[in-house]
């Protein structure tokens, strides 16, 4: 197959991931019953976050039996209700929960147990279950396609690439870090590239998206970042999301990834920082947004929870049921939702993992319906069996009075001595030697190279 055939095949099969630029010009929010003012921040905890440590079931005695060294003790936990608590590092999450702006859904996830990271993430991002319903595009992309965001920055990934959940929406942009997104082309170069890409239908939409995004981001970049965020990729991403919202760029949805949750070994070394960093970034985001928090919903999900019984390396292996969280001004927070299946052996999924009592799609469906006014959910969430809403969200128009919340008290940054590789210091190696010799000579080059 050559590229022309590939394009033809893609056109025939509807597999093309490219919406023409004019779609953006069609105006926004024209689908019936939608709520054009509402925005979604989708935060994916990559690696399988341990819901039993994030939101420990203190009222379940089996929890302490199964987690002899890793269980969060009742004395340390931050209580949420008479049964559940939060990990002691989750002070910021507790602040949001107590303000009624954060809700927890326990024992949530995919109904079919899938313990491979990559398969489980792909299932969740496609909005499907089981896997043989694979669509190849994402639930968020399908949802966004129905509302027609109308502006170049309506759907963005604050990451180097667009995640599968947004795939299928040709206009979704990957922005990386907003301040780094700067196009450095002279006019002539831009014009000739536009002409050249006009002859490559597979790449043309992306080239045009770069040009459009660079222009649209100008006002966002001149909007100063808010304060109070932890110094982390997640902090930067949420700060960028806030700038997109506050500058009036027309953002409808942003996708953010944060990793490190695959805690197979010495879990307690890392998980406090992960949970604290998550909560601090969310609370800073909330405070940064001000009144815009009233029509912003943050959906936090992870591909699976972790094994109920801890392993011998003071860590936890891949499990099934996990925890989801939603935060925002439109959330009926301060409550733990979902029914708790219990951790007794007979209640476990495959005899080892927390069972799932809330299909992750049920939460997405309730959110899209109640907060975003989306009526046709079956095309977005393939295979979903509707249940009654759990009352996690306030109806559109019923927004709470937002009161001032304390800023997160940020832990001092711990320097491990091992900087990230992208802080590589070239100066430490001094001037580089000449290396032209490693190129073979032009004339009869092969004779120099072959012994």
């Amino acid at each position: 197959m050559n590229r022309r055939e590939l394009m033809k095949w893609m056109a025939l099969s509807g597999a093309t991931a490219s919406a023409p630029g004019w779609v953006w010009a069609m105006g926004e929010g024209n689908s019936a019953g939608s709520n054009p003012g509402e925005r979604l921040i989708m935060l994916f905890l990559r690696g399988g976050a341990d819901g039993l440590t994030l939101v420990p079931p203190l009222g379940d005695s089996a929890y302490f039996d199964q987690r002899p060294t890793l269980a969060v003790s009742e004395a340390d936990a931050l209580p949420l209700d008479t049964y559940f608590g939060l990990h002691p590092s989750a002070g910021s999450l507790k602040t949001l929960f107590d303000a009624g702006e954060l809700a927890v859904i326990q024992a949530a996830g995919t109904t079919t147990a899938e313990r491979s990271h990559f398969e489980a993430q792909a299932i969740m991002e496609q909005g499907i279950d089981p896997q043989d319903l694979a669509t190849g595009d994402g639930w968020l992309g399908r949802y966004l396609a129905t509302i027609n965001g109308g502006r170049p920055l309506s759907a963005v990934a604050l990451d180097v690439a667009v995640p599968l959940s947004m795939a299928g929406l040709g206009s979704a942009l990957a922005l990386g870090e907003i301040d780094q997104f700067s196009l450095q082309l002279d006019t002539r170069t831009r014009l000739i590239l536009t002409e050249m890409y006009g002859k490559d239908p597979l790449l043309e939409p992306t080239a045009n998206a770069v040009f459009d995004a660079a222009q649209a981001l100008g006002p966002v970049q001149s909007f100063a970042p808010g304060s109070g965020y932890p110094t982390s990729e997640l902090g930067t991403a949420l700060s960028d999301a806030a700038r997109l919202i506050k500058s009036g760029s027309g953002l409808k949805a942003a996708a953010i990834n944060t990793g490190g949750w695959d805690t197979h070994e010495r879990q307690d070394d890392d998980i406090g920082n992960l949970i604290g960093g998550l909560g601090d970034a969310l609370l800073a985001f909330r405070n940064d947004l001000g009144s815009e928090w009233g029509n912003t919903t943050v959906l936090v999900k992870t591909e699976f929870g972790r094994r109920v019984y801890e392993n011998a390396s003071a860590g936890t292996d891949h499990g099934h049921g996990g925890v989801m969280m939603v935060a925002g001004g439109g959330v009926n927070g301060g409550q733990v939702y979902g029914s708790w299946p219990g951790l007794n052996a007979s209640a476990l999924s495959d005899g080892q993992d927390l069972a799932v009592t809330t299909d992750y799609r049920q939460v997405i469906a309730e959110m899209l319906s109640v907060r975003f006014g989306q009526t046709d959910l079956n095309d977005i969430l393939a295979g979903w069996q509707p249940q009654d809403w759990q009352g996690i969200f306030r109806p559109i128009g019923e927004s709470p009075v937002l009161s001032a919340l304390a800023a997160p008290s940020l832990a001092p940054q711990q320097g491990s001595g091992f900087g990230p590789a992208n802080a590589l210091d070239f100066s430490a190696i001094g001037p580089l030697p000449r290396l032209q010799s490693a190129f073979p000579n032009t004339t009869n080059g092969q004779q120099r190279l072959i012994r």
Partner: protein
Amino acid sequence: MAELAPVTEQLKEALRLVERTTYGGNRQWADIVESLGYEGFLDWQLQPQEIDDGGLEDLLASFLPTLNMDAAELYDYTINQRNFGDSTRDLTLATLIRQIYSPRQLFERMVEFWTDHFNIPINSGALGIFKPLEDRDMLRPRVFGRFEDLLMGSAKSPAMLYYLDNFASTAEGPNENYAREMFELHTLGVDGGYTEEDIKETARVFTGWSIREPAEFNFYWQLHDYGTKTVLGETIQPAGISEGENLLRRVAAHESTARFIATKLARRFVADLPEPAVVDAVAQSFLDSGGDIRTTLKTLLMLPEVRATLPLKLKRPIEYSAAMLRGLEVDLNQTSLSGHYQSLVAGGQIPFTWPAPNGFPDQRSYWQSSNGFLMRFNQAAQLPGQTLESSTLLQDAAALGGLDDQINLLESGLRPQGLSSDERGLLKRYSRRLPASKRATAMASWLLGGPEAQWR
């Protein structure tokens, strides 16, 4: 300068091979493949030990101090002398420089392939020591050997034992992480026919496989589970370390492994969605040769349908940026290397930083992003101007007076398969009003930033 002779179909096929098997062609590599022919070029590249590296390794060692340290030296230098991060820097720079400048191009591409396949991000201090040792002592010597040896080497590598937690897996509490990823990512593939029970049993098989200081494999029999196990339908009698070794041999020779490796090779070298007939032929070659990687790779690249396939792969950021430096024949210097490095930061492909065990993605759907193309456009726009002094191609172009001659010269280096008449017309139209001194760099930017340069 006269018009270039029209490129024959035979030469076009050979030039596509260069694009597939190197980090980008240029004038010299076009000459080489023209003189050696398709199969001759491939055979040459498949025997890297026979290729003079032009002093590259000595040169790297002269300014990257940790490159040749043994485990004990590296441990002392890093931990006791507190040179944290040097080994990561040295491995990263050596990798990037080899990709651009080593004459052993297919070897470097296969190093990258296996580095992705057995991915280990350097995300902790211990891996800053283990991973460089693994790259040098385990992976590179096995790149073209038998897959079984690579798998065995990986299973016993302190880097892998540490990254996937097997070092802490004991009879009392087996850790499933390595067992799961070994089946899913290293051998059978996710639909390759193993079960959750197989994972649990395999974790027991590998209990006691751990690390001894400073960076050595050690089997701790005291920590091994000496019960009977059943994996993939076969009973494994208690025997200690040989249980795991035999299991790895069995899995390496499994038909699902052959298909999985064949699919990944075809995806890396030919197309995101390789044709079933191609995968079948390559998988068969893998099985027939006892998992010989050199044989399997040659089978793939000699298949008539592969030779005839036009460029369908979107270059990944490393491939794109390295090809630019190679096409321009840029001398190694601070400017070119920093530019390359920064473009990979922006594009999201610094070696050894992919955070999950599955390795950097190998499909267009991931890399064709607005963020990625922003990086590509900026790099193409800036690099020729920044490297004018150190680019042999641009120096040669600047020495020519006529526009047509300059275009022909740039074509020979950056589009050896030939410019389309459309592209030639655009170059002429847009460069006409530029001062003569700026033409060559501008036209190089346009050719490097344009759509044809994105595919291989």
